[in-house]
């Protein structure tokens, strides 16, 4: 399978039925997308597929042929975080942080589609991303901050 991964063309030799999550983690050794449920219920594995948030545990590798996949690593770096990552850091929007890959990816995709959301729209967009630590209020504040800065 050929697709673009974080801006670069790549080729995967994995089983085309494999969910994209395991391809990203095991073949490309990426750290952002996390296994949470493998059921599409929690959001921990979220990536962007052609700029839209997608749950990588639910997408077979075959379905990404020809598409562009972006992971947390593709947004920004420790030195140059993306606007959304920077907002999460400033708001200290993480406890264990295990869910936060999904939160940042979901928020990034959402803000690309709706750059000036209301708080209610943000809540709706994030409602099916699970967090056990109760970091929700910080996550909402971070997304509002990123939106106010007008970027992703």
């Amino acid at each position, binding site marked *: 399978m050929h697709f673009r991964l974080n801006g670069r063309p790549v080729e995967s030799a994995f089983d085309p039925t494999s969910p994209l999550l395991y391809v990203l983690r095991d073949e490309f050794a990426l750290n952002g997308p996390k296994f949470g449920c493998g059921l599409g219920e*929690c959001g921990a594995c979220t990536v962007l597929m052609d700029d839209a948030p997608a749950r990588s545990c639910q997408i077979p590798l075959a379905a990404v042929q020809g598409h562009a996949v972006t992971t947390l*690593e593709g947004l920004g*770096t420790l030195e140059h975080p993306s606007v959304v990552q920077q907002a999460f850091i400033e708001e200290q929007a993480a406890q264990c942080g295990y869910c936060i890959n999904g939160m940042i990816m979901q928020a990034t995709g959402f803000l690309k589609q709706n750059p000036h959301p209301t708080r209610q729209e943000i809540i709706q967009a994030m409602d099916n991303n*699970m967090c056990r630590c*109760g970091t929700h209020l910080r996550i909402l504040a971070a997304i509002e901050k990123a939106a106010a800065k007008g970027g992703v």
Partner: protein
Amino acid sequence: MASSPAYPGGPEPAGFEGPSGWTRRQFLFGAGALIITFSTAANLLARGAAAAAPPAPAVNPWAAPGVGYLGNGSPLSSWIAITADGRILISQSQPDVGTGAQTGMLQIAADELYVPFERVSMLPIDSSSANTGGVGGSTGVHRAGAAVRLAAATARETLRSLAAAALGVAGDTLVPRDGAFHAPDGRSVTYAQLVAGKQLTGNVDPNVHLRSSATYEVVGTPVPRIDIPAKLTGTGGPTDYLVNQRVPGMVHARLLRPPAYGAQLLSYDARPVLKMPGVVAVVPLDLDPEHVPGWNTSGITNMEMGQFVAVVATNEWAAIQGVQALAKTARWTAGEPLIPQPASNTYEYLATLPVFSTQVANARGSMVRGFSQASRQIAAEYSTPYLANAPIGPSTGMVWVKPGEVEVWSDSQNVFSTQTQVANLMGLPTSAVTVHNFPGSGVYGRGWNDDAVYEALFISRAIGLPVRVQWMRQEEFQWSTMQGPKFFRMRGGLNGNRVTAFQFDVYTDKDFGDTWMGQNGIAIAPLYTFPHISQVIHYVSNPMRKGLLRAVGAPSNCFAVESFMDELAYAAGVDPLEFRLSQLSDPRAIAVLTRAAEAAGWKAHTKPSGRGLGIATFFDPGAQTYVADVAQVAVDKATGQVRVERMYVGFDCGLVVNPNGVRLQIEGGTIQATSWCMKESVRYADGMVQTVDWISYPILHFSEVPEVVPLIIDRPDIPPGGVGELATMPVSAAIANAIYDATGARIRSWPFTPDKVKAALAAV
């Protein structure tokens, strides 16, 4: 050894590079760059002593919570080291489970050593770390932080003596500033210059002079957490999550588990699975020591027993598919019959089971006298169900069994118990077992059971490769430890507006989790000035596998106690806030209640309007922290739907080391506990847990999260108390009391589901 490479021939120095840029290997072996070494052997001795010896009496209350970790003498060099360029490396063993406790500890170290925060860093945690135990019980800053404070202060005073000798002046004329000692004549010498070529010797001094809290510069400021930027950018590396640790040659295992508790494996066919691409091995696991020679489980608490089959593969998807294929061939016996779960999901039946022991958690005065002084008696019963820890990331562990030694990669809450237990299982000395600790998903107590590590150990022992086990979502819900249910019988005697007798009986399991409950049980009543109190725990035996969940039973105890306080207040015809305040004498308890009530605009409603406020409070004598909640709710009387709109949290944990950290723990604890009591309960039937995912075991969603208003009372003159678990305690009682205030309906069991609220409304 902690200093060995991650794998033979691997890039070992980088494998243990700390946040400071210094590697563990350089650190331990000098490499010409480092001056002080950790004395691992002495540290091991100290660890044994710390476990065995009672805490020595300490004069200074700021030091007292940490003294227990020093045993009969703990070498300074195992706690603290100074690099040639003046950076300070701290060692301690409590993993940061997302509370920011390590950042707080480093703030303390920076202040005691008079250096900027940027100059201190924490070494990665492994089985050679200085022993501050495991993480739990809100002890991070409170206890481990106090030990770090002692170590840092001892280092400062040791450096002062060296500086005095170097400059030829009296030590007490020297002023520490910015990593150097300054003499009155203007000369100065840096810490790095002082230790060059020498080792700091001596033990951490439990009576060392501590810096006055009034002069702290770093403590008390909202220093950003050290771990957040890397976690949010997916940087990988040795300080990243356990799940991101990859060892070349590592294989992935997934497990086939029984379809019901107690089901025995009759047969399976590995042949078709072994033909699948990527599959390396199929390994039957039997964790029962009676079946496995050399597998010694003695001394291991709450190990999961049973028979499983592991499919080992080069990648995760192959292992997952292998398990699915294997399941089709496996035959099992029927499981063990379980006590059926009550349809009501309340647990009155616990009081009908044989009680095999009782524990008096708290006793004051006499129940006979207390009730004889009462003009009225009130009684009520409460219950809480099975709860899942339900971490977002399921259990993971990685183990490599090599000839004569074992290397473990784990997110366990206690590296030393993981090390001891792995050594026990393998019949090896602990020195042959190295445990590396990494951040994990927030598991809230689950991390005291190393299931995935034991499983990876068993598999690696069979195949000799580094084996990574990760549980699937359903396994985490079905096979993890969980918090057991509880049933409470409360009885109170009232005379006018005073409580004369307060009787609390709880029926619960005596399993790993609940043996700790006595301590938390004590935490509830004594603050009230009731003359007669009895709190008794009745231990029964009940199905399912129990373990620790954040705050270990105290939130459910507090639910019963503080709901009942409300019932007593209404019976006495007194405002619930007034009722509490009038029977408290501790000014800190009064202050948190008053603060929360004022912020919420406290006013108990006389006529139910569908909107209401409820109050509840808690004091933890172990953590030395006070908390009081006012919940604001809106109840839709037609549907029974409760919306928790806002939680006001009065909070006094003494000196606030990091205001942002404390705020975040208040937010997180409050939201998590709201989730427990509003939504959660493990359901089982047919010998197996039936709540297996986020649909059948829902937790709070964004749209259901209350606004949280932290109201922190900073007390710079009181040593820092515990924080991590505290905010969870009064939440459910405050919400239940608010539902009563809003509707007149009293809810006496978790979760407060619409059906239950509707039924209670119908009975009003």
